[in-house]
Structures are given as structure tokens and as C-alpha cells.
């Protein structure tokens, strides 16, 4: 059976695409799937450092496409997780060296080898984006609860729809206490504005910064809320689409929330 090709995209940069790609990929591999993650950000590669594999790069995705090596030679096996492989981006080329038809060829090869292939899309909606979505079966749109990120997400969602792909949304870096006091859009607001199905909610978590410092997978840290959220997202992608989505706000005690509400009422009077 052919595996799935899933593109991770956002439009805006810096919202956590690479972390999402590395984390969901790692989680699915830990759940026993064969997983490939491909860095499509030609010229500005980063997935390798986030995964701690930067010193193992020999060949890259451009080498594979241009026939300088075999796909197997370019795939880097993860240090900790079996069944997880990285195909890094080239750092010296630019995005125009890859054509959409190259991606169709590459993805057909990847489908045969892996249960899941995640394409870490570059920011923007130009050639790099077009390449990344060309052969994708599904799409995950990452956004932060913030206006510019949501506006860009809306643009990207529109472009995906025009390619007959119905994307799913991950709201990343939610700060529950700001949502509680009305200074950050809640995931419900974001979903209402974008009118798209939710795949998962990820809280702002210092552990993500720390794990990217060391190049270790956040999903292996049981005490990390973000790590656990990524694990649940992976389960939703792999046969458990109805696994309930935990509301980061609900994790605060009901009394604390009441207190915030009362405080606001007093302030308003």
C-alpha cells in the first residue's frame, strides 16, 4: 500500500512549521510507522538542526532530484528513533532548481518506502511552496493565534483548496493565560475566522526551545505539554481522527478561571 504525503505549511515564517514537522514525524515513528521528513526550504535548511542531524549530511534533496545520488544514500537515519529518516535541503541552491514535476517523481518513490512523508514547506507562496504542495495528498496548516499569521494561513488555505486539498489546522504557541484574560485569540476564534477543521492545539512551551537547543525530539519528553500535544496530533493522523482535542484553557482549574472572570467584571464596573 502506498504511504501518505503530507505537506506542513503556513504562509508566514516563524510560526513553528519545522518544529511541527520534526515532532509529528518523530511521534509517528515512535508509534511504529516508517516516516520520512523532507526539508523543502532549499537555501535555508533548518529541519536538520532541529532534529540534531546537521553533522550527518552527505547528500540532499537536490542531489536526489538531479540524479547525483540514490534516494537511499541521501536519507539520514535518526539517531534515537528507528524508522525515522530525514532528507535534508540543499544549502547552496535556490528554490527554482526544483520543478513541480520533480516532486511528483520524488514523492512517488517516497510513497513506496514510507507510511508517512512530511514535507516541511518554506515560508511564502512562491516556487518553494508550489513545489512542496505539488504532490501532497494532505496538508497541515500551522498558525499562531495572532492576526498576521492567521491572515497568511487563510491565503495558503485558499491556495490549497484550489489544488483540491482540504487542509487541517494546528494552532501553535497558545498562551492560555492571555486567552483567559481576552488578550489572545482562542482556538475557537481562529477556527471561526478560518472555517477549517482542527487537527490539534499546541501550547507555548519552553521545553520546545530547550529541545531545539539540543536537537532532541520534544515528543519523547513526557512532561512537556507541547510534546504530548504533538503525540496526540500524530495519533489523529494515524487512524484515530476522533481523538478528542484538549483545550489548553481547560487545563487550568475552574476556580482560577472564575477568579479571572470576576476580576474582569470588577475592573469593568
Amino acid at each position, binding site marked *: 500500500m502506498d504511504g501518505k504525503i503530507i505537506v506542513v505549511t503556513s504562509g508566514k515564517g516563524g510560526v513553528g512549521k519545522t518544529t511541527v514537522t520534526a515532532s509529528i514525524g518523530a511521534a509517528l515513528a515512535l508509534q511504529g510507522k516508517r516516516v520520512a521528513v523532507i526539508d523543502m526550504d532549499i537555501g535555508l535548511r533548518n529541519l536538520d538542526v532541529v532534529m540534531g542531524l546537521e553533522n550527518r549530511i552527505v547528500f540532499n534533496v537536490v542531489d536526489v532530484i538531479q540524479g547525483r545520488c540514490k534516494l537511499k544514500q541521501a536519507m539520514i537515519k535518526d539517531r534515537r528513533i528507528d524508522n525515522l529518516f530525514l532528507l535534508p535541503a540543499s544549502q547552496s541552491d535556490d528554490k527554482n532548481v526544483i520543478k513541480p514535476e520533480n516532486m511528483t517523481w520524488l514523492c512517488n518513490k517516497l510513497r513506496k518506502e514510507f507510511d508517512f512523508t512530511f514535507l516541511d514547506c518554506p515560508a511564502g507562496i512562491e516556487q518553494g511552496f508550489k513545489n512542496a504542495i505539488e504532490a501532497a495528498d494532505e496538508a497541515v496548516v500551522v498558525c499562531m493565534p495572532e492576526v498576521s499569521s492567521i491572515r497568511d494561513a487563510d491565503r495558503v488555505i485558499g491556495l490549497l483548496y484550489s489544488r483540491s486539498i482540504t487542509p487541517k489546522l494546528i494552532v501553535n504557541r497558545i498562551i492560555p493565560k492571555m486567552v483567559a484574560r481576552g488578550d489572545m485569540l*482562542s482556538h475557537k476564534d481562529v477556527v*471561526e475566522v478560518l472555517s477549517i477543521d482542527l487537527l490539534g492545539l499546541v501550547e507555548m512551551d519552553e521545553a520546545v526551545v530547550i529541545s531545539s537547543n539540543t536537537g532532541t525530539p520534544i515528543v519523547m519528553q513526557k512532561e512537556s505539554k507541547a510534546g504530548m500535544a504533538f503525540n496526540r496530533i500524530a495519533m489523529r493522523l494515524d487512524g484515530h481522527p476522533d481523538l478528542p482535542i484538549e483545550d489548553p484553557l481547560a487545563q487550568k482549574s475552574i476556580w482560577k478561571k472564575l477568579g479571572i472572570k470576576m476580576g*474582569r467584571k470588577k475592573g469593568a464596573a
Partner: protein
Amino acid sequence: MIMFNTLLKKLMHRADDSKDVAKKRLKFALVYDKLEIKDDMLEDLQKDLIEVISRYFEIDRSQLLLDIERGEGSSALILNTPILSARHKNAPQRVPANR
């Protein structure tokens, strides 16, 4: 579509949270982006709509809300206004009667 629940909404929820401002700005930005129109077009539309509704109803203009609701593949423009009273049938329709 005209809805009558503005007052209820106002009572239930403070509308001046910064996230409400963000949400409103976003909704309109997305519509402008998609239709590639300027925001004064929607303002003109609002003015015209008020004028038409005012011919038939006495409305509270300060409570008037223009909103956008997005569904699958389409967006709905929602003008939300409390209606104070219906205008008298015999009153001249273009000029407000009781002024």
C-alpha cells in the same frame, strides 16, 4: 440578514478585549483580501443599508454592528441592529416622521 440579539450579546460579553479587536480586524481583512475591495466600499454599503432600514424602522444607530460570517465557500455580511420601533405606515417613507 438582520439579527436582534445585539443587546443580549453586549450584556453577556465585554466587546473591548484586544482579542475581539483582532478578530474583527481579521474578518474584514480577509474579506478585503479576497474581494480586493477597499474598506470604504463596505462603509458606503453600511450607510446605504442604514438609510433603507431607517425608512421602515426606528433603529439605534449607536448599537449598529456590521459583521462577517464565513461558511464553506461563501461569506455572509451581517448587519446587526436593535430595532426601537416600526415606523407608522402612513408616515412619509423617505423623511423621518417624528423629528
